[in-house]
């Protein structure tokens, strides 16, 4: 009896300390439970800080630029001569070059991308798709500098055999190569949109006697239109922001023209030229880099917001 009660009290003491210990470790655990989300929140906030950083840097330096060059002169000027004795800072030649190169790229990537998407989503067998898709992904994984090299050393000389008046640097060749680069992006986004169309709709149309082609044009594409348009807009945004291909293959002439055989400069290529040219900090040229980058940033931002708006607003829900 006495032995029993002895062990009992000892046990109680042991259990009590165990409870105490467990409470202590529980407290530590709970402290962690409370602080860790806060730490994670701070880190998650860092990504927001990147945006703030980009906007802040661009806005402050752009304001500095507009104190030297008027906003109207910048946005309506058709002449860009940053290095001349009496420099002129019209951004229109750069916007012109950007739009033309993107347009050429989209003329290639748009039709080919959507036809690729149709083939992969509607016609290809599982086996064909398994072979073709990784190849397209490979195309998307090639660094842009490699495309630039390809445009400059292969595509331009090739085109010059057919178009003798084509310059050694021109906007046509980088535009075409940029189009090839964007095909995988448009194809894969459009294919996602087409695959999301329920099979019941396909089967319904096929059961009514439509051919696959008719199903594609009358059922699938209308149903997936929002996704397809969104992929186009994202493709344009990608083309606008593309830098190395146009920098290498289109040269640095700031021509304000519609002639695609001539050298033109895009906004991105101008930033590269000025930044690589070691413009002294504080000079007007240096600040012009930020004004152009700001314009570029706004262009792509609008495109990205538009793409999201289109795919959300006009989505057909099934």
């Amino acid at each position, binding site marked *: 009896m006495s032995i029993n009660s002895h062990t009992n009290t000892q046990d109680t003491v042991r259990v009590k300390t165990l409870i105490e210990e467990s409470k202590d470790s529980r407290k530590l655990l709970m402290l962690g439970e409370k602080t860790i989300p806060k730490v994670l929140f701070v880190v998650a906030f860092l990504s927001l800080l990147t945006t703030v950083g980009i906007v802040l840097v661009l806005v402050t330096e752009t304001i500095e630029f507009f104190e030297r060059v008027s906003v109207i002169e910048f946005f309506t000027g058709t002449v860009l001569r940053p290095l001349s004795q009496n420099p002129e800072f019209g951004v229109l030649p750069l916007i012109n070059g950007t739009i033309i190169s993107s347009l050429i790229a989209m003329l290639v990537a748009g039709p080919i991308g959507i036809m*690729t998407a149709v083939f992969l989503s509607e016609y290809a067998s599982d086996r064909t798709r398994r072979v073709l898709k990784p190849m397209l992904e490979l195309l998307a994984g090639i660094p842009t500098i490699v495309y630039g*090299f390809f445009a*400059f050393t*292969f595509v331009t000389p090739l085109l010059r055999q057919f178009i003798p008046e084509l310059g050694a640097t021109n906007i046509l060749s980088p535009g075409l190569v940029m189009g090839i680069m964007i095909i995988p992006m448009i194809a894969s986004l459009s294919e996602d949109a087409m695959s999301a169309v329920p099979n019941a709709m396909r089967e319904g149309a096929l059961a009514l006697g439509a051919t696959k082609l008719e199903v594609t044009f009358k059922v699938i594409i209308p149903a997936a239109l929002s996704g397809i348009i969104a992929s186009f807009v994202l493709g344009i945004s990608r083309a606008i922001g593309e830098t190395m291909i146009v920098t290498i293959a289109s040269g640095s002439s700031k021509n304000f023209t519609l002639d695609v055989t001539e050298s033109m400069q895009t906004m991105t290529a101008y930033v590269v030229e000025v930044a690589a040219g070691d413009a002294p*900090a504080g000079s007007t040229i240096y600040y012009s880099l930020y004004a152009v980058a700001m314009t570029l940033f706004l262009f792509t931002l609008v495109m990205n917001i538009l793409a999201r708006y289109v795919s959300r607003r006009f989505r057909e829900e099934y």
Partner: protein
Amino acid sequence: MKYMESDQVLKKMNRRILYNNLFKGVFFLATTVGIIVLAILLIQVFTEGIGYINVNFLSGRLSTDPDHAGIMGAILGTLWLMAVVIPITMLLGVCTAIYNELYAKQGKAQSVIQTNIANLAGVPSIVYGILGMTIFVRTLGLGSVVLAGGLTMSLLVLPIVIVSSQEAIRAVPQHLSEASFGLGATKWQTVKNIILPAALPGILTGTILALSRAIGETAPLVVLGIPALLIPFPGGLFDRFTVLPMQIYYWTLDASLVDEYANLASATIIVLLFMLFLLNSTAIIIRNKFQKRY
């Protein structure tokens, strides 16, 4: 009275079937366009460059003399860049993904963060270059060193890592964490012991793909002011450096001056593509080997 002209119906039907087959061919041809160009590009690069790859080229220092030019410095620079980008993007990316997926309350703040990440992914790389040049190189006074380049590249690829990590975390089935909670584990214990290990293959795959984007990027580094000809090898975070894409860029620009520079650029492209190939193979192996199906 005849309701149907069977001849006409047959003719019409044959035409529709013909169109269908015709367009199937057109769609297939369109699909091959990209692949054919890719093949031409690779053949072009390999025929021009493969003869220039030898031990001296891979281990030598840069030189204006094409016969003695080597790209060891650029290879080391690329490796140093990776050494900065991997830990930073993994740490920031995974933490952000955990917060967004598992801790953030659904609401305004959450949607602001998500929209922001989507927008950041669409910002042209050259704008990141300007950010890096202004903040890291000039304001912090780092100069165009490994650390500045690495931080800039980290910011550039961070959205990719965040998005793929979020997808990996979302793919972990609910019942695993519910079982963990049922055994009395706290939220962080569940995250640390259950969710992260299960999501790790997906996170690693995303990080490797982001990394291959980072080592192929050129534009931000041009803006940072990476020099054309740099003789000493980088040995630390605060050394000036160059990377493979920069070397390709400079040799391509000068290809009209010295013909052989085009060959050197091709050879460098082969080395870069080989590194990308290794990275992507690793990603595929990780995905196939460690991806569990629940």
